[in-house]
């Protein structure tokens, strides 16, 4: 993917760029808002990552300029302020996702990857299929290897998020946002306990686990067996 990054701290920018390049992406970095707007209006990128607080024009202004120019490119906002107020402002201006600094790189990589394949239109599909797991979104049925699996509504949504990102890591905080929408991070391991229930239901009678845990990052459903 072709990724644009606005980040004024040179060390952080280099660290993020190196990490994303190691994952096979091209990364272009700008250190201030004016350069960012010039570049973003001239070229198309797959994902834009904007730091909210940069000197001069800030990330939010850049975001407004990009959206005003009619670009629908997915945008991930990075913010160092306390999460609540900033998240609302960012999402209102048309950001697709946000991440509070400081963050783990794995979290950033997972969110950038998830944003990058968003416009493929998979959201409209009625049936999702990952390896031997099949999900019918209209009838809210799940089958593994043709065998029906009974899921609670919450477990169903959890599985849906994983199946919409086949072969890609979905982090714990992404799941908290998308499945529970609490807007805060409870200290308990809600994700872990629900995930373990979902797993035991999915894996019953199968030797291979349908959902893989990626240590330090999140969860993953492999596309190919």
């Amino acid at each position, binding site marked *: 993917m072709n990724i644009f990054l606005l980040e004024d701290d040179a060390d952080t920018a280099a660290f993020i760029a190196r990490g994303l390049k190691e994952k096979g992406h091209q990364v272009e970095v700008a250190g201030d808002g004016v350069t960012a707007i010039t570049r973003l209006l001239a070229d198309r990128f797959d994902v834009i990552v904007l730091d909210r607080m940069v000197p001069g024009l800030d990330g939010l202004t850049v975001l407004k300029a990009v959206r005003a120019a009619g670009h629908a490119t997915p945008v991930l906002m990075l913010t160092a*302020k*306390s999460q*609540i*107020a900033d998240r609302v402002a960012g999402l209102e201006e048309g950001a697709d996702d946000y991440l509070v600094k400081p963050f783990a790189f794995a979290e950033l990589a997972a969110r950038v990857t998830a944003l990058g394949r968003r416009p493929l239109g998979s959201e409209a599909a009625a049936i999702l299929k990952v390896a031997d797991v099949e999900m019918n979104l209209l009838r809210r049925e799940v089958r593994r290897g043709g065998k029906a699996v009974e899921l609670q509504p919450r477990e169903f949504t959890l599985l849906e998020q994983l199946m919409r990102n086949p072969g890609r890591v979905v982090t714990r905080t992404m799941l908290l946002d998308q499945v529970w929408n*609490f*807007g*805060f991070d*409870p*200290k*308990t391991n809600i994700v872990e306990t629900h995930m373990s229930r979902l797993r035991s239901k999915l894996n019953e009678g199968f030797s291979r686990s349908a959902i893989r845990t990626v240590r330090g990052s999140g969860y993953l459903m492999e596309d190919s067996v």
Partner: protein
Amino acid sequence: MFKRAPRTIRGLSLVVAGVSCLLTLVVGVMTFSLVHHEIERQLDRRIELETQALLGTYRRTDFETLVREVDDRARSAARGTIGYLSGRSETDSRMGYLVVDAEGRRRGGDFDGAMPKAGWSEFARYRRPDGSAGVAQAMNLALDGGGRLVVVADRSALMAVDRKMIRLALMQVGLVAAVAVLATFWFGRVVQRRLESIHGAAGDIMAGDLSRRMPLDGSDGEFDQLAKVLNQMLVRIEDLMSNLKQVSGDIAHDLRTPLTRLRARLEDLDTAGTQAIDPDGLEGALREVDELQALLSGLLALSEIEGHSVRDRFAPVDLAAAIADLAEAYEPDFEAAGQRLITDLALAQVRGDRPLLLQALSNLLDNSLTHAGTGAQVRLAVSTQARRVRIDFGDDGPGVPSQARERIFQRFVRLDPSRSAPGHGLGLATVAAIIEAHGGSIRVVPSERGLVYVIDLPALEDR
């Protein structure tokens, strides 16, 4: 146009006094001219009547009869009341007459002065019978058969009234000026005294005495109300300032421990060199960093909530439905901890921030999970009564000692003496701040077993 109006009390009192004097003077002048002209009209009317009567006599008879008639009238004792006015003495309100024949000889009457000009004249000078000098209003008419008739009325009564009225007006102006100056000066002193006391208190506060308050006099007047509002503001400022002080101290203290541990770990890794980096050591260092981050963001969130800026985002929240979601999310954890979560949710709507309210309850649930122990029962009930929403939260775990009940809502307070359990002592402080930001209150209720909270929130008003 009011830009140039005086803004000081001295200036205002001068303006008020000046305007009052001016108004009194205007009213005085108006009264004076009204009364003066009325009396003058009476004088003129009297002269007219006398002249008419004498002319009537002259026309009916002849010049000699007129001369006799004039002499009669001049000698008459009853003459000289001028309308409704009378002078202090007979001479003050007397009338005078003079008849001159065609050759200009004085033939009758008692008017002793220069012949006034023809027609009306004011201020005709003459000598009165007692020898004093007088000023009179005079009418000088030509007679048909030659000769002139002069009728005069003494102006002394009018002039006496004029003098009295001028004296009265001057006294009024003086009195009003004095009263106005005194009143505004006194008013100014009252205002100034209050302002000075507020001034002094403000000075002390600026000098650092944040506990100082504006003085009240208990009158509940405008100044008292202003002082009360200022005092409420000062209480809030003092709270925020002491929070700030406490937080800076607490942060410094609580950051030191994880930073020391982090440094030790990194030193270990450093001395180990590149050949044998211990993955456990790295992971441990990352954990310390995560903990530091959690502490910092917890503190930031807490100060944001206490600053009440979160109120900008408040919207109607279906509390029962939100809590049901939360309870469902927590259910597996309670099962894993060998505890039971019982909910009793009645319809309850509040105005607030859903994530924050859920976070508050989530903190309470976390506490019970950690501290209530295996086999504990946790009860979460919501009800609405008389525009208040009441949340009852309780577990039957070991609870807290009664003397610690007030303390547990302060930040960095941890009852676990070993401080071995995870957390920074921000959980309940955050809960209290969230509830307070929503205009509610939380307290620990004494109970035989476990820890029981009652949360009180204003219910959403029906629109």
